[in-house]
């Protein structure tokens, strides 16, 4: 990592001119002061970032809270799971949770597999229509999905696919972003591997599955986590294509019953239910997510 300290190290590597001799002392004092300021600011920002989540969990686990008022007790008192029990009994939250898990799992697996396949074709293949397809896909990438929700609904209802899992999973079964992302990963592998495998008599599928894919595990995991998060949190499209409550995903279900006049405890229990799965994935895959974002600029 390139940082202030290595800037200093960099200077000492070359013989620094005399007039810089007093710099390190001044810089060190200044640096220490800046570090203290940095910590104070960072802790303040962190408090405002986590604060809402802490309040959410605390209220969700407290018995009967009608409104959130300050000052409040952060440790739930009296502690109770009543809000969650009421949520599961009064809404279809459990079904929505299942739908989200089912849709996100299949969509992620499907999207990642097709991305590795298409990425391979774009990285290594020579075929008629390559440039045309490549440009078409690039065009879709720029297009705002929100502009297409109306005709997507029209097409899906003509196909009789509204209110089906197929509609929820379908568009996620291929990823233009994933295709380009994987293509770039394949390009980083020397073609010598392909050539050697061809000499050994391997066909394209064998090169793809046995020679190349195993070398791309970190990229595949990164793409998988980004796709999972993106699918899990999707809202407008899954809302449009499902009108029946039992087919909704968790965010859509929660979004359509939010602000219905329920009490804060119930709302926060719903929010917590939506928060915990992505939080767990984030805790496990944090490194991959942040790497993936800084590599690609896309968060799902």
């Amino acid at each position: 990592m390139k940082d202030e300290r290595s800037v200093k190290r960099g200077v000492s590597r070359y013989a620094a001119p005399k007039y810089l001799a007093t710099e390190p002392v001044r810089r060190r004092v200044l640096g220490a002061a800046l570090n203290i300021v940095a910590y104070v600011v960072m802790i303040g920002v962190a408090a405002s970032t986590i604060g809402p989540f802490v309040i959410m969990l605390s209220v969700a686990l407290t018995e009967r809270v009608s409104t959130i008022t300050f000052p409040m007790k952060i440790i739930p008192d009296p502690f109770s799971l009543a809000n969650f029990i009421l949520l599961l009994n009064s809404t279809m939250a459990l079904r929505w949770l299942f739908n989200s898990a089912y849709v996100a799992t299949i969509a992620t697996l499907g999207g990642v597999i097709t991305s590795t396949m298409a990425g391979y074709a774009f990285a290594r293949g020579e075929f008629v229509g390559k440039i045309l397809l490549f440009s078409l896909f690039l065009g879709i990438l720029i297009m705002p999905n929100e502009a297409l929700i109306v005709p997507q609904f029209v097409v899906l209802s003509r196909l009789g696919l509204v209110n089906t899992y197929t509609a929820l999973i379908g568009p996620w079964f291929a990823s233009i972003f994933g295709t380009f992302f994987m293509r770039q990963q394949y390009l980083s592998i020397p073609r010598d591997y392909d050539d050697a495998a061809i000499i050994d008599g391997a066909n394209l599928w064998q090169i793809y599955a046995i020679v190349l894919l195993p070398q791309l595990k970190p990229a595949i995991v990164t793409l998988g986590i980004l796709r999972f998060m993106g699918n899990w949190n999707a809202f407008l499209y899954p809302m449009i294509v499902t009108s029946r409550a039992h087919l909704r995903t968790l965010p859509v279900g929660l979004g359509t019953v939010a602000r219905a006049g329920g009490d804060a405890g119930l709302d926060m229990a719903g929010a917590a239910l939506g928060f915990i799965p992505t939080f767990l994935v984030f805790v496990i895959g944090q490194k991959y997510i942040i790497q993936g974002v800084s590599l690609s600029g896309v968060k799902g």
Partner: protein
Amino acid sequence: MAEMMESPATHLASKVWKQFLRSARWYPFLLANVVVFAIWNLVPWVSMIEVSFSKWDMLTPREWVGIDNFAGMAQDGLLRIALCNTFLYALMYVPTVMLVSFLVALFVNRPVPGMKAFRALYFLPNVTSVVVLSIVYWRLLAPRADSPLNYLLGLVGIAPQRYFLSTSQALPSVAGVAVWSSFGYLMVLWLAGLQGIPQELYDAALVDGASGLKLHLHVTLPMLRPTAAFILITSTISALQIFESIFVLTGGGPVNATLTVVYHIYRQAFIFGRLGYASAVSILFFAIILAIALIQGKHLRFGEGIY
């Protein structure tokens, strides 16, 4: 003679056939992408243009109305409000989130222990569903005097505010929540930009006698231009597409104060059943996004590596 006449043709045919065979090996790898692309992009595009010239609620037969839907947009007062609100929202959100995320990135880029943990914490809202965040914020920014934010403001002597229930504060409040929930994502992009600046540039500037603020002014900022351009265009485009937080937090209200373009499209199509008109507005919306992407696109350095 006839054989000689035929031979170039058969030669060509066999050449085409050979090329097809060579190509055909690759097509199965692209099959899923092409099918999904056709059903969810290509066909909807054609259908959007087709439907935009008709009056249709999906229950009664479609009625051809020519350019009535497009002409109707000029008379649609709500569309004008939605366009104004959407651009106003982008104007509030984009500069704020860019500045906040940049300052935070400068802080967490310092080589002191614990910064990695801070980065992870700041990123947390970005993996959380906007619906979840909105449900929580709707309560935190309640208009009551003892709601969390009003209580905190009260500590520094500011009177309770009405936030999402006030026509003047609703849009800024939605933008504020968006800044809070997405600065960590842009911070990661700034960090990638900061760490991509070659060390040699700093070394050279130091040898030349630059230090401290000057170092950043003459090395860091110019080198971050591609990153800034990428963040500017992507956050502008994502701001123009705002829908989810509006849906949960305000429902477009109060008195259309937070009615945005996508929310307008959604309501026209799925609440009022005006699919033709909603398609026409969708085309307008797409044209706006495309124009912004093209104007800014030449600065869009991102993707040179990936695409």
